[in-house]
């Protein structure tokens, strides 16, 4: 029975020689020095200026509604409210263009009185104007990427027609597309 105390003493004396404490606040680079932070670690977000097309898939999939997209004046802003995010990494996984990363940056604490003072990660992409009414439609880069995807995946026989159609449709906003669907030959009854 007393053996436990002897064992513990030995263990403690061994511990005394090898403390396992990290130097964190003293040396900034010691973040995760013992754990080799993996490339998929989930810290503060970063939008890739080039890759992100502004489709807003991350906003739809976000499990705590921390990512919001707001359109204003030919610009779409995706903003991540870090103070609401749960860092599940779903946005990164779902991103079709791999335009959103979670960096291993964990020093995100801030002074502040309320949630508005918390860090926000924002990214804006330009929206293309509707050819007809001039209102903002979709992000320009998203239109391009959709075109690219469609032309990659479509049956080559239809490629020319589809490409031509897309040239017209993609520049209209949904409302204008609806009203102009006869002219654009997209109305379902048109073919009858």
């Amino acid at each position: 029975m007393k053996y436990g105390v002897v064992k513990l003493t030995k263990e403690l004396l061994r511990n005394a020689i090898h403390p396992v404490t990290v130097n964190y606040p003293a040396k900034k680079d010691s973040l995760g020095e013992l754990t080799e932070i993996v490339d998929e670690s989930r810290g503060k977000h970063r939008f890739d200026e080039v890759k992100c097309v502004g489709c807003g898939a991350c906003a739809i999939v976000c499990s705590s509604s921390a990512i919001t997209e707001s359109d204003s004046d030919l610009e779409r802003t995706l903003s991540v409210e870090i103070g609401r995010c749960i860092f599940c990494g779903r946005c990164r996984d779902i991103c079709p263009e791999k335009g959103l990363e979670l960096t291993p940056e964990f020093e995100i604490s801030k002074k502040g009185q309320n949630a508005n003072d918390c860090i926000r990660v924002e990214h804006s992409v330009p929206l293309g104007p509707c050819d007809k009414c001039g209102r903002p439609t979709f992000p320009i880069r998203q239109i391009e990427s959709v075109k690219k995807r469609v032309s990659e995946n479509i049956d080559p026989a239809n490629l020319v027609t589809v490409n031509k159609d897309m040239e017209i449709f993609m520049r209209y906003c949904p409302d204008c597309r609806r009203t102009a669907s006869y002219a654009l030959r997209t109305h379902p009854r048109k073919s009858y």
Partner: protein
Amino acid sequence: MELPSTISIASIVFLPIVSFFLGIIYGYEIRKVSARLQSRRGPWLLVPKSLRGTLGVTRLFQPLYDIIKLLCKESLIPSTSTKGLFRSAPYIALTCVIVAAAFTPVATYSYLASFELSLVVILYLLLGVPFAFILGGAASASPWGVVGSQREAELMLAYETPLVIAAFSIATMADSLSVQKIIDVQATRLPFLLLNPLSAVAFLVAIIGKLHLKPFDVPEAEVEIVAGPATEYGGRLLAIIEIVKTFLMAICVGLFIALFLAGGSVPGYEKLFSIPTFLLEGLLIVLVMTLIHTLNPRFRIDQALIWYVRVPTILAISGLVWAYAFRHFFPAFI
């Protein structure tokens, strides 16, 4: 007895201050060593360069910073408490320990220790501290304070018995109740640690209980009764309690050295040489106490009481018997 000289009066004034700083160093040692034993780093002895702007250079005086910080904080007084008693209890304890500190020799130096019955005075004054805590806890009207006071009272009965018996067995061997005399007896011959180890062990265990270190921190058991008698104290009053604890640490260790280790004096050397020895011995005793502190969980109050009766009290009594036997068989020694 001749009139006290200026130096003597100065020593009376300065001794508590020295004791206080010793207590702070001991407090740091407990924290640092227990941290290291738990494979942590503990309060930095030297703060890394990049943090010195915010955190200062060293943490050696960590308990002192705690006390200064608490002194500058507001103290809240619960409306349900008995206010006068609640406020005065820490000050009663403080008076007790300051006077006791003046009596306790630091490295054999103490003017007051040479009085007859100085050992009785110290033990008596130390008894005042738990009494003041019990009063304060009971006056706070917090259920935790009350339970803490109750436990403190029970534990006090348990540890005071071996403490007093062990101290008096030493007095018996030295044939004096003056601490200075006890030191002098040891300085010329062997320290009582070797002559009466039973009492020494009993005394050490008793002061562990007195200082509320594990396994006897029952009155302050955090997860059970928050902070015991100190639950409702905050700010300045808590600072006073911390100061009392710091003093208590230094006094208990100093008393142990005085009674069992010849107050740090080494036979055959200058009296001045006793200062480093005293420090070293003090740090060693605290080290031993820290080891016990880290190695054990907390006793339940009933277990603590039974254990105190079973082990240290028996040890102390056998130490007393041994002391009488020693006196009887080696009268020349004393």
